[in-house]
């Protein structure tokens, strides 16, 4: 019998963790002589108060959904993929190559091709650590971290030496052709009479991200490979007993994981920058770890956590803009949220479990 009802496990515990993180953040804001209530107001109006704010929140959330799903899938196979950053970086390269290779006539043709390009490059970047883990036993945490650096160095080389148009100073690719520009939420919602900010970068990949959540859910809990992946994650000797090849499952899990991280590039590279720049991932690969932890590796949880972190990113940016709160403090708030929802999850969970236990006992006795 489970100690807590499911809603408490999935909803109550993260919310309490979040409230503690916000409470401590408020104390920190007070300590530097600012008004936490005003700060919250700025964050909420900045991130959720306008379609412009929403547009940014959902843009960031789209990135985090992809990287969060990437970490989650690997985690179901008990593989800790820290390499989302590098895989998304390489995914960007894949997307850029696809976008620049053809003078795309329409985005509806460019997008599927870019999705494939991003996924293949991201998966390829995950394939090497996966192979080393499966065949050689090199720990995937170490190798994926190293591959983040290698990925960045590789992109640096490719941008400065190959993709940079002649005469251009900054290490970036050429602009993508018109036909590869994705419709923003403004473009999508306008025909059905909803006005959405024109300036916000949220675009059609948000819908792709939501679709990815559904597909990942189906894959993990409804397909045979997903079943084998979860079984392998719970017990490796058990997997061998059931005829599940550890090498095969490690490769599959990491390829899908890297592919999902690579898909993120359709949002930030193709949807927003419309060219490939250095450091376009901006830490979203690492945020994906926090998102997966907070979302308990469930696609729906990942979706909610990604929206939350999107809010924190956008609200934080607004805070730095409108209040005399230093930008570093935003990082502190984000760090506190990660700390409490991810790392210190059990600190909140244990007392709540005890509480439920006591409730159940008194009910049984009374």
């Amino acid at each position, binding site marked *: 019998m489970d100690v807590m009802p499911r809603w408490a496990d999935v909803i109550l515990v993260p919310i309490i963790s979040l409230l503690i993180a916000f409470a401590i953040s408020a104390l920190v804001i007070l300590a530097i002589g600012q008004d936490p209530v005003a700060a919250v107001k700025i964050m909420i109006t900045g991130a959720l108060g306008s379609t412009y704010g929403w547009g940014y929140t959902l843009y960031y959330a789209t990135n985090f959904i992809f990287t969060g799903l990437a970490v989650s899938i690997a985690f179901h196979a008990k593989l800790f993929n820290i390499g989302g950053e590098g895989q998304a970086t390489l995914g960007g390269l894949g997307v850029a190559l696809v976008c620049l290779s053809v003078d795309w006539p329409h985005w509806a043709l460019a997008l599927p091709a870019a999705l494939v390009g991003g996924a293949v490059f991201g998966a390829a970047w995950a394939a090497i650590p996966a192979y080393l883990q499966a065949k050689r036993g090199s720990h995937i945490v170490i190798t994926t971290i190293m591959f983040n650096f290698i990925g960045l160095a590789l992109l640096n080389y490719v941008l400065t030496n190959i993709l940079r148009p002649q005469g251009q100073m900054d290490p970036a690719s050429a602009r993508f052709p018109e036909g590869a520009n994705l419709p923003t939420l403004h473009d999508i919602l306008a025909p059905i009479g909803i006005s959405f900010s024109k300036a916000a970068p949220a675009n059609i990949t948000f819908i792709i991200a939501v679709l990815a959540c559904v597909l990942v859910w189906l894959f993990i809990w409804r397909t045979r490979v997903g079943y084998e992946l*979860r079984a392998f994650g*719970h017990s490796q*000797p*058990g997997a061998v*007993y059931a*005829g599940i090849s550890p090498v095969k499952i490690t490769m599959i899990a990491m390829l899908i994981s890297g592919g999902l991280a690579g898909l993120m590039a359709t949002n930030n590279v193709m949807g927003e920058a419309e060219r490939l720049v250095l450091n376009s991932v901006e830490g979203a690969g690492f945020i994906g770890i926090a998102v997966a932890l907070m979302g308990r590796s469930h696609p729906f949880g990942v979706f909610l956590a990604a929206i939350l972190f999107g809010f924190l990113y956008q609200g934080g940016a607004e805070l730095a803009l409108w209040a005399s709160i230093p930008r570093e403090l935003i990082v502190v708030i984000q760090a506190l949220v990660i700390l409490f929802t991810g790392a210190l999850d059990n600190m909140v969970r244990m007392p709540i479990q005890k509480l439920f236990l006591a409730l159940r006992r008194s009910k049984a006795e009374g």
Partner: protein
Amino acid sequence: MSADTIAPAIELKGISKAFGPVQANKDISIRVMPGTIHGIIGENGAGKSTLMSILYGFYKADKGEIFISGTKTEIPDSQAAIRAGIGMVFQHFKLVENFTVLENVVLGAEDGPLLKPSLAKARKQLVALSEEYELNVDPDALIEDIGVGMQQRVEILKALYRKADILILDEPTGVLTPSEADHLFRILRGLKDEGKTIILITHKLREIMDVTDTVSVMRRGEMTATVKTSETSPPQLAELMVGRKVLLEVDKTAAKPGANVLEVTDLKVTDAMGVQRLKGINLTVRAGEVLGIAGVAGNGQSQLLEVLGGMCTGTGSILVNGEPIDLSGKNSDARTRRKRGIAHVPEDRQREGLIMDFYAWENVAFGYQDDPAYSKGLLMDNAALRADTEAKIERFDVRPANPWLNAKNFSGGNQQKIVVAREIERNPDLLLIGQPTRGVDIGAIEFIHKQIIALRDAGKAILLVSVELDEIMSLSDRIAVMFDGQIMGERDPSTTNEKELGLLMAGVTETGAAA
């Protein structure tokens, strides 16, 4: 002196302990008189180990009091237990493999920062203790070089060196041959004669009858009875453990063996460490018979099951129904074995046979996840799977009858029923079954044994591996004894006896002629 005037060595009053919603110990009171051997018997999960862990300071009781020799004592940790004169010999030894016996005994009980004086002092005491109690331990031998029986005696020495007056042994005979177990019991009787108090935790009725003075029976966290051993009988104890009458003997007719289903020739397996675990096994199992593999744990039985079940590679030849099986691992694994009609109930159901965090219904597909009956297009047909699970739960009387419960939330016996149902209902030509009743309560043992015999009577071949000699003797039609990766010999269960098998299990073959 009458019993009333001597304080009991240990008295527990009203001990209760809960883990989450599970009440592991419920209001347990027990008195153990000094200079006696007190048995605690109960099914796995009855709360024996929890109770002893409370006594040894590993867990804190929710309620209740502990009295040592009449004085109320708080035992917050194992150091306090040692100070109170309690020594514990765990089921899994806690010894440093590359230390000598002497170093292990001294470890944690050194007198000062320098080792030499402690070791010299300990050596003297060790020799004295060793002689006094017939322990026969070489103080300078490395732990990794001595057998399990001697390792266990080192654990006992450790406790005695720490001046233990009360010795708790948790399932001490699980890893011993019958003769080693007899040696252990002689030591325990010697300790008792010296005035030590011994608590023996076991689930084996025979040991209780052999060696204890009094016995307490636990069932579902409660102490159901405490009786003098001389005034009780195995059937009565079994009934107290399970709460109903139990059939201890397996009811079966003579086997009608048919064609060879499994033929193994010169089978060798080398493990990941480069140690040869199977050194050329030859055996056959015919349709309609049970071949029992007896042996002390760790003599290659696990590897035999694993290589037959496709979980590791080997060399030699295996024929199933006359057709060879690939042993290189290149073209075969556990999945292809299943397709060849081999079902496998693994020795360790919690590590291998089940995914403990999966629902019961998910576990019913485990190993058979690519069965077309469980899939619908690209997806798995969970509804069909659940329906199948409900039917299996019904037929095998799994309790609680809830397919939505995680495997870990079933008792050992019900977990095993899920595995056995899954494997037997495939109607395999060959069933590999390892430790079918390890950690399984008596009621479920009876049921599982019946299922095995029913499969045999349906004309299927069964290879049974068990460290429980009783089980091997009562289920098998032929018995092969394994020692050090080899088959020492085959015996007929109707003409052999435990003594003869025990010698074979210890690697002694001269008696072959006498049989």
